[in-house]
């Protein structure tokens, strides 16, 4: 560890090859990423060595992919459900009522909560349209369970919901008001069981602060205690090290 106790303005050039390979220990990784944020010369050097490191993907001898892998993949590609009015009207009335009430809970409170101008609200409605469609599609398929999500720390203005569908073991995370992460940083979603954290995906944020992530974990969602979102310095993390942004109990 002593090797990392260097002045911060000293370029950690000897660590850049290991950084490009993903072979640094956490303390070294932290040092390099903090330095890269400030040093254009090292960013360029890191980019160059990373271009070489990426070639290592061809290190293994080529193997034929079993044709069954392609067939299985294609069998798993389900078309995105249609959100047309015709499709909607085929749903049982109770499903529509359920969806409508949950949607009202999800989006209505957000609009009512803020004192915005008419133009801003109209703009928000347009921006939330795709988000709403995704929610509607999930709810229209099956019964869902709504869990509120409130941001804290660097994302204290964020709010949204998790919609769980235990029958299909899927969940949709919809958040708005999230500040866009700095270059290189990512919002990472974690499923929490006891003291263990399983990375569930990266939460992409658009320029309006909207974020959606559809989860379909291999393990049953019922077995997890909570869902957490952290702001990480890299998307390639296997355990949470960054600032906690939101936490919701799944019990």
């Amino acid at each position, binding site marked *: 560890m002593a090797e990392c106790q260097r002045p911060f303005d000293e370029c950690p050039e000897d660590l850049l090859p290991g950084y490009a390979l*993903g*072979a640094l220990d956490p303390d070294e990784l932290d040092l390099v990423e903090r330095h890269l944020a400030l040093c254009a010369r090292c960013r360029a050097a890191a980019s160059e060595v990373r271009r070489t490191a990426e070639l290592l993907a061809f290190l293994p001898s080529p193997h034929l992919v079993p*044709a069954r892998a392609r067939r299985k993949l294609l069998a*798993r590609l389900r078309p995105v459900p249609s959100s047309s009015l015709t499709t909607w009207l085929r749903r049982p009335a109770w499903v529509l009522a359920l969806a409508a009430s949950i949607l009202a809970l999800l989006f209505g409170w957000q609009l009512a909560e803020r004192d915005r101008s008419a133009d801003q609200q109209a703009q928000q409605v347009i921006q939330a349209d795709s988000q709403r469609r995704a929610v509607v599609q999930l709810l229209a398929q099956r019964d869902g369970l709504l869990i509120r999500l409130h941001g804290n720390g660097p994302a204290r203005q964020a709010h949204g919901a998790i919609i769980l569908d235990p029958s299909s073991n899927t969940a949709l995370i919809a958040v708005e008001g999230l500040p866009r992460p700095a270059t290189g940083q990512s919002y990472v979603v974690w499923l929490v069981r006891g003291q263990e954290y399983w990375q569930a995906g990266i939460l992409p944020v658009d320029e309006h602060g909207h974020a959606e992530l559809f989860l379909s974990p291999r393990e049953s969602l019922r077995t997890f205690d909570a869902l957490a979102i952290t702001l990480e310095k890299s998307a390639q993390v296997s355990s949470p090290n960054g600032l906690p942004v939101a936490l919701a109990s799944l019990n």
Partner: protein
Amino acid sequence: MSETSDAELVARVRSRDQAALEVLYDRYARSVYSLALSILHDPGAAEEVTQELFLQVWQYPHLYDAARGPFGPWLLRSARNRAIDLLRRRTRERQLSWRLEVTAHATSDQNDPDDAVLQNEAAARVRQALAELDSSLRQVIELAYLGGLTQREIAQRLGMPLGTVKTRVRTALQRLAAALAGDREPWADTR
């Protein structure tokens, strides 16, 4: 569509064009599978990593940001991360049993090959350059890249100073860069 750039194909995937995903699969599945197999030593798990990765591309195509670089390196980086994560979760005993399975699968796969795979000459040149590295350099690269070990873990495993490992990693990458200077990148023609 086989001449279409990766960027265009990803754009089509975003608009739910399954044929575009199939072209991307045919272009990259072999590299993804080979990389995962080298890390996991388990054909079944490598196949699963390959399927899951392309399924992710289909379900969440927006995760790839073209502004941050070409698609190929991003996909293979994702493949490696998935495989390394899986490797770290598995026990040593299971790894040993998987190694035994490799032989059996390698034989049976010959009867079930996927012919539509990317096999470009540039990738072969990269492999040649890697093969020509000194074994001591290649060893640290393999432990880091395919074994998922940090430089400090490699030093402990090989019983050598951390500085030596860092030097070997740096030298290996420098030699690889020099050997391929002026050469086209494997994915340059598919951007």
